[in-house]
């Protein structure tokens, strides 16, 4: 009996080794390295293993706090807009169409087949002074001067990030809405609930977990975005992702960059907890 238990344990352990290695090598090890680095310092392009809180102290100065705050605001706005656009799309896909479902799903996924960078550059062509939108506006006589704030602005960054991340909102929500038990909707109807009432009291509460997951999937990458703000952002559009990239790629300040990355991680964990708590379906344990 005991021998058998031991053998089962050994077998289970053997199965656990690959995933443990995977997580250990690709996740825990880099994280631990970063945590360690964040307490060290750089002297003349050499990382010196001397304990210091200086990086965290630099982090909480108004400069970087301000950039963190800007980034959180922008990421929340991108998440909110993605929700407003993504919910109806997911709802339509899951509940209102049978015939075109596959086609439409492919259309949602299709942009993901193009490189992120190409999609960002494409927005430059659309939003620029001589871009498609400005030329159309001028041709229609709606404006005489090109509209400058379309490109190199927070508007451009928000628009491109929504475009890039909205599929990540739609897909998890679609998965939840599609599995929604039709009997519940029928019951609501039988009990005299109108379309709106059914939606507000049945569909929406039941789809909260999908909304929460979608919000997370949009919020997390938006928090770390740096290519899009760098290419489309104007003189004021600095985001924390760019500052982190700068520490590693330009300033050779791995310790400060690590401290910033961990701070981003902490912020994401806080928001993840909030989203998931808000996303708990009503009545669930």
């Amino acid at each position, binding site marked *: 009996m005991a021998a058998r238990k031991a053998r089962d344990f050994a077998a289970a352990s053997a199965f656990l080794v690959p995933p443990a290695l995977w997580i250990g090598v690709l996740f825990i090890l880099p994280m631990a390295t970063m945590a360690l680095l964040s307490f060290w310092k750089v002297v003349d392009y050499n990382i010196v293993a001397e304990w210091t809180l200086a990086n965290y102290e630099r982090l909480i100065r108004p*400069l*970087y706090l301000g*950039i963190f705050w800007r980034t959180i605001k922008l990421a929340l706005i991108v998440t909110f807009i993605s929700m407003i656009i993504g919910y109806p799309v997911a709802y339509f896909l899951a509940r209102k169409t049978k015939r075109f479902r596959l086609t439409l799903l492919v259309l949602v996924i299709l942009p993901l087949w193009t490189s992120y960078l190409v999609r960002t550059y494409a927005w430059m062509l659309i939003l620029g002074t001589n871009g498609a939108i400005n030329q159309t506006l001028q041709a229609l006589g709606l404006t005489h001067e090109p509209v400058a704030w379309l490109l190199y602005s927070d508007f451009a960054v928000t628009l491109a990030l929504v475009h890039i991340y909205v599929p990540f909102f739609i897909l998890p929500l679609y998965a939840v809405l599609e599995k929604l038990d039709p009997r519940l909707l029928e019951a609501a109807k039988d009990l005299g609930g109108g379309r709106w009432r059914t939606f507000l009291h049945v569909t929406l509460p039941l789809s909260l977990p999908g909304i929460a997951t979608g919000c997370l999937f949009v919020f997390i990458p938006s928090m770390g975005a740096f290519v899009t703000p760098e290419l489309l952002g104007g003189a004021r559009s*600095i985001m924390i992702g760019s500052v982190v990239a700068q520490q*590693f790629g*330009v300033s050779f*300040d791995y310790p400060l960059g690590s401290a910033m990355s961990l701070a981003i991680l902490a912020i994401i964990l806080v928001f993840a907890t909030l989203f998931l708590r808000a996303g708990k379906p009503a009545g669930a344990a």
Partner: protein
Amino acid sequence: MREKLDLNVLLPAGMTRRQTMKALAASLGMSALPGSAFAQERTLNYFTWSSWGEKPFADLAKAKVNIEFRPTFFSSSDEMVAKLRGGGTKLYDMVVPAQHFVALSVRAGLFEPLDPAKMTHRDDLFPEFQNDPNWTVDGKLYGVPFVWGANAMAFNRKLTGEIDSMKALFDPKWKGRIALRDDAEDTLCMGALMLGIKDPTNMDEKALQEVKKLLISQKPLLRAYWKNVADLQTMLASGEVVVAWSFLNVIDPLKKAGIDAGWVWPKEGALGWSEAVSAVKGTKKLALVEEFANFTLSPEYGEVMARYNSYAPASKVAVDRLEPKLAADLGIDPKAFGRLTFKGNLANRSRWNDIWNEVKAA
């Protein structure tokens, strides 16, 4: 093992074992990397500015010294050091630093000294470059500049007319059509020149704060900060931007695209630089790097550089080969040196980076 493994059974008859091993080695080499094993020996991994990786230089190197290079690009000196320091020394054989990053890179253990005796074209250079102290550290030579120039102003002449002053970068007339470089060192130095500060790279905190104030006050006029010269080129070509703090290499492609692009060292000053080929620490091809470094000093290289992308050769012999008109157009008179401010090494780079981020976040 009881039987000796006989590779010959797998191969066409008549091939000896040595030939077999050679063929195997060659095929392995070929699958792993482009080019044959022989070509590999004369190929250098080249970490450089985009200008020096372009086709005319590759063609010339192949034709003149039978060296091929595989270029990887950086867009600022900071980036160069950060990437070499972050593991790049294992990837590259040679690199093109700017003068004020040499001592710093040597101290960080990134460069290998060169043998001065191999730099046979050194005597062809203008005297200023033959023994430029920036390139010698602790008595050892780390490069001989093949090119010099300045970071200054580019403008769209058709829209702005002639420009001779940095004031254009602060002129409300061009509101929303001005671009500055996203680079702490370069742009803070530019601001310092605008304020008449003589030795920008040695600015104290008070001066840095003044420059910061100036640049923040300029932000409402700004279209964007450019990171990559290709992005600036797009902005100038599309008319998004009409005047910018820039590198020289945006100008030629714009001219070729039919845009009347102007280039000027403003009267307030411009930021001078010289560049040379340096050997990366631990390269196994030091002799070949030295051969290539010497080749960049040759009159042929200088001539191609001047004609193809309008950069000023450090080689006097190369300049003598150019028509006087072209030489004048390039502004490659070393007498103009006096108008340039050459950047030195920053005492507190991270402070500059913070100040620059404060400007950008304001």
